[in-house]
């Protein structure tokens, strides 16, 4: 499988649809331990990248990813905006360098995206943020790709890692992001950013399977 701009645009549509479908799962989480706007922020981002197909399709995958990053940066705001933008910039850099012609290439790009996001947010695993989903997903992707698994197997592995990562946020004390203000009281709730990442990852994996 190869990461082409057309696929990126399809992924944007799939993400947009998935976010809307999962509104009831995402929205209450940031209300419980954050400020209640995460769903709206992610939706604003998903909407805008889904509407960019016309300007993206003539571009190379790395250029398209960069354009998406810039658009997210100036559209989403909040914590999610720069973090997502960082993610797509990281991806773009690696795709430009390595191309995106194999599972491993795409996995490396995904990991590079997460890497850039970590740089921006100065976060790490275990802080009850989206990283608790993104990091395990990125490792799993790389390991499964190295083992030359099929797209379907990789999808299952990533989804399982994302699910587990999401679930792990439930018992964590938030130490980063707005929920950190709650201390112990944040225990018992899933993290909103982790949930939306899990939803988006699942949507893109399902799409990948359908395509090839």
């Amino acid at each position, binding site marked *: 499988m190869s990461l082409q701009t057309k696929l990126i645009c399809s992924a944007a549509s799939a993400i947009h649809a998935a976010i809307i479908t999962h509104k009831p799962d995402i*929205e209450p989480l940031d*209300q*419980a*331990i*954050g*400020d*209640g*706007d995460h*769903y*709206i*922020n992610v939706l*604003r981002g998903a909407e805008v990248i889904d509407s960019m197909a016309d300007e993206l399709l003539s571009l190379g995958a790395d250029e398209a990813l960069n354009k998406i990053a810039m658009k997210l*940066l*100036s*559209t*989403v*705001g*909040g*914590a*999610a*905006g*720069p*973090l997502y*933008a960082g993610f797509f910039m990281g991806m773009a850099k690696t795709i430009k360098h390595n191309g995106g012609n194999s599972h491993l290439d795409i996995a490396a790009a995904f990991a590079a995206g997460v890497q850039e996001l970590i740089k*921006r*947010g100065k976060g790490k695993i275990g802080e009850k943020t989206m990283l608790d989903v993104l990091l395990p997903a990125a490792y799993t992707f790389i390991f499964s790709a190295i083992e030359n698994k099929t797209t379907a197997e990789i999808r299952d592995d990533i989804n399982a890692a994302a699910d587990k990562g999401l679930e792990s946020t439930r018992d964590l004390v938030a*130490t*980063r*992001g*707005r*929920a*950190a*203000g*709650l*201390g112990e*009281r944040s225990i018992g709730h899933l993290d909103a950013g982790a949930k939306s990442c899990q939803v988006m990852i699942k949507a893109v994996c399902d799409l990948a399977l359908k395509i090839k």
Partner: protein
Amino acid sequence: MKKFVNNVDNMLTESLSGFEKAHSDLVLLHLEPNYLTRKTKAENKVAVISGGGAGHEPLHAGFIGKGMLDAACPGQVFTSPTPDQMMAAAEAVDTGKGVLFIAKNYAGDVMNFEMAGEILSIKNATVLTSDDCAVINSTFTDGRRGVAGTVIVEKCVGSYAEAGADLATCKVLGDKINAQTASIGVAFTSCTVPAAGKPTFKISETEIEMGVGIHGEPGRKRETMREADAIIKDIVDAILTDLADKAKSAEVLLLVNGLGATPLMELYLIYNIAEKLLQEQGITIIRSLVGNYTTAIDMSGASITVCILDDEIKKHWDSPVHTAALRWGV
């Protein structure tokens, strides 16, 4: 949710347009990217720019004008503005002496202002406010939040810039004020984010949220409702513990800030209690501010801020200011 709104998506822009029209002698609104500047550009001074999510009005746009901010960048409700807004604002108000950003310490605001600062070719610095001592500080976290103390930083740094201080000195003053300012808020009700359409948290008639933030983030503790004397004593105690030695025999500014839906009558009652408690500790209030200055939309509740004054801060607090929400000496 009942609000004065036509369409939630346009709410911010419609409100900003109204703000521009109501204060057409003071401000100009620029759209896409959204930022507001003084009507008349200041000359030959460090430009002071603040910004943050909407929903805290009059913060920040209400503080644009002579003696305070040069520009403000409003984000969506409770969502940090984006770097393109800060950059456009900086380009519009820079006079060659550089730009000082004032941002409240939230992951989102920090990252967005940081990116703007990195990309911007104009020399710039940032003061991060973090006066909320309800949140325990730690180097392993994002640290304390910026709340109502931000108004004091914006007023004094704005005055300093107006007086001709350079970028580095303005930042030093901002950081100093932030370091000797502490706040805590308490909420009786949640706020309702317009796009969400319902209260962010549920709270009963017998509970209060102690140490609440200004975004409807729950506070550190859900406590039992009690008389004002007891609530305010807990808040003042926590603030004094945080300020520690700095507060000993100090002269201070006492800010009693309404979070949106609490009547002035109650804010002054709080002031009365806090004044007594501070005085008992040998602290002298020599400046005061009471009103809705850093709100959480329609939340019922209040915060108390104590800022340790010295001659420098006092001078810049007293200096003339001419904005929509603070005006004196002009």
